[in-house]
């Protein structure tokens, strides 16, 4: 059987993780091709609804990454983001949706190697968990209903 190749989207801040991922490139460190990076100015800009949109549109996993605490380019965006993620994780857990498909990390502009590790670990993890079929079923039922209504 062919190996399952998960789709991941990474929401990263411009100043730390995006720059860190640039450094991964400059350092020519190889990592899995499964992740697509989306640049935000700051983790504080990342709306939790974008994460659920990613899942609704076929992502098997989402990486959210930004500056380490105290290192935010805007001082406190990552602190606000952290509270948002803590709340989001708590909600998902209570709703029976294991937040394991969302990988949160702090990757600084100097941590090119860490970025490669985070990507590879995340891809491995999601590959093990498998495709997000539960969510895709929800999406499918939505499409069917819409077709029926329309």
């Amino acid at each position: 059987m062919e190996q399952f190749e998960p789709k991941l989207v990474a929401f990263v801040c411009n100043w730390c993780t995006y720059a860190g991922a640039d450094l991964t490139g400059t350092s020519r460190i190889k990592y899995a091709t499964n992740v697509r990076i989306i640049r935000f100015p700051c983790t504080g800009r990342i709306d939790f609804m974008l994460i659920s949109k990613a899942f609704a549109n076929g992502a098997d996993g989402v990486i959210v990454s930004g500056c380490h605490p105290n290192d935010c380019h805007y001082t406190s965006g990552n602190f606000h983001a952290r509270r948002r993620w803590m709340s989001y994780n708590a909600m998902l857990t209570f709703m029976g949706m294991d937040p394991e498909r969302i990988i949160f990390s702090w990757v600084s502009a100097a941590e090119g190697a860490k970025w490669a590790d985070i990507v590879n670990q995340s891809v491995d993890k999601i590959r093990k968990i498998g495709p997000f079929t539960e969510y895709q079923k929800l999406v499918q039922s939505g499409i069917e209903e819409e077709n029926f209504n329309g």
Partner: protein
Amino acid sequence: MSRIGVFVCHCGENISATVDVAKVADDASRLPGVVHSVDYKYMCSDPGQTLVKDAIKEHNLTGVVVAACSPRMHEPTFRKACATAGLNPYLSEMANVREHCSWVHDKSEQTTQKAFDVVRAMISKVSNNGALEPIKVPVTKRALVVGGGVAGIQAALDIANCGHQVVLVERSPSIGGHMAQLSETFPTLDCSQCILTPRMVEVAQHPNITLYTYSEIESVDGFIGNFKVKIRKKARNLDEELCTGCGLCTTKCPQKKIPSEFEQGLGFRPAIYTPFPQAVPNKPIIDHDNCTYYKSGKCKICEIVCPTKAIRFEQEDTILDIEIGAIVLATGFDIKRSDFFPEYGKGKYKDVIDGLQFERLASASGPTQGMIRRPSDGQIPKKIVFIACAGSRDPAKGIEYCSKICCMYTAKHAMLYKHKVHDGEAHVFYMDIRAGGKMYEEFVRRAIVEDHVNYTRGRVSTIYELDGKLIVKGADTLLGAQAVEIEADMVVLATAGIANEGSEELAQKMHVSYDQHKFFAEAHPKLKPVETNTGGIFLAGACQTTRDIPDSVSMASGAAVKVAALFSSDLLTREPIVARVNRIPGPSHSTCVGCFLCQPVCPYQAIEREEIKDRAGNVIKSLARINEGLCQGCGTCVALCRSKSIDLLGYTDNQMHSEVLSVLEEAFV
């Protein structure tokens, strides 16, 4: 309908070696909204940019996607190209297919597919881009230089000589930094203080420089051109206007045996002191921890003897608020001390000293008047072992990097020793001799050939004391790792240079990045070595990595030019990446309901309250408004706003939403 042009770059072979660029361009040409799609060897080159400009005109493009390197690299290039061709620069986006794709993946279908997915996502984003106009903000033409070592001094002088105001802040009681502590400097062996002190005096006397010594940065708010800095001026316990610097207080102080920081603990100072005779300013401070009066409430001898009655025991720290346009960080470095090395006695052998201590021993103004005497008994050592790379290039010690200055100063130390103790023996253990620099290699050669310094390639595994001698055990790797044992009278460790104490906290106050060793991070390792990622904050000297005097000075001048360039115009053009609260026709005026939960979230206090009034002047609605001069575009308020009433220009909900949807479309992986 959008008319998007897609430009896929080969970057020589950097992208095309692993990504099928022609296929990406071809596939992109079939995407909805794309009217032009090409690939080219070097998009950033002149002909490459012309390709973009011509296409904008020829195809009447409404958006441009350049698939090339990181936008952190060339976004401004292509925005400028668009602008010259008459397209609003913010209608262009870059797809990062180099750093995030071709360089991190092998050549494969997946790599090409990934590149295409990223291009498609950016096409989708750019279709939702809007034309934006840059924001103009005024510039405060006053620079802040943090750190008064040679780099800070140079930067301050250069900026001041360009006709701009400079505030120089130094946390110790005098400017001068480590360079003031050095005896002679390589490769010319000229006296360090002789060349530095005139510069120090120039700083003190320069009409454009305001000097705050014994002061620290309390906080930094604001942004490029418009920083608001709080400086804590610590109490010197002195009326600085009255003090003439006669030094009578320091000679009469009953506390005389306090280890001197300036002398690296090898000499003593009183409780009221100036760190060294040439200190600038030449005004003492009182060390509360060791002052008899602060400890017991009695003494006050300094107050009694002071001829101008300048002592102020009750003086408190003052906080100064200063508006600043640009900042140069020149906070320098520190070195590991001998207690960092368990194998070399963990600091308990008095005669195992570090490089800065040797500088003080060799200095004519030092505790031994320039005679090389060992700290334990004051004897002149007949045999000294110098150990280079003590801590540096040693991953086991957490310091992988080369400290860069030690090879040269070790050669200098050995040479100075031989010049002072003619019958002495100098041994150097080294890993490699790194003497890159004008006259550097020649200098090391001179130490070996003319001054007969014995160089042994190898590391020292252990040092222990035996009968008043230090037994140094090492290996000579050029003789097949043959064991070497030297009975030395003194050992000098060329310990690793490290980030200065407090650099992490300062970086956090300044919102600049730092590397894993807590050195401040430059914006680009090659092309922006003096800039930081934070606009308006520049780096000079060893706070970025350990470096020698000529390097520090040239970097300081570089930073000064950056500041002068920033100050060359009255208005600063800022990226229009700012948040905005939506406005709709009355009676709602905005979907904002004025809950103002966004206010505490904003790090820049940029969210104001706007009141909408009816004709009679009654307030009918309060809603949030973003001050575009203060907003830095983090977007934290945008994600917080429940009613989606705030959006971030350049990263709007529509843009981000479409990017997420489109990056996940169809074929993937």
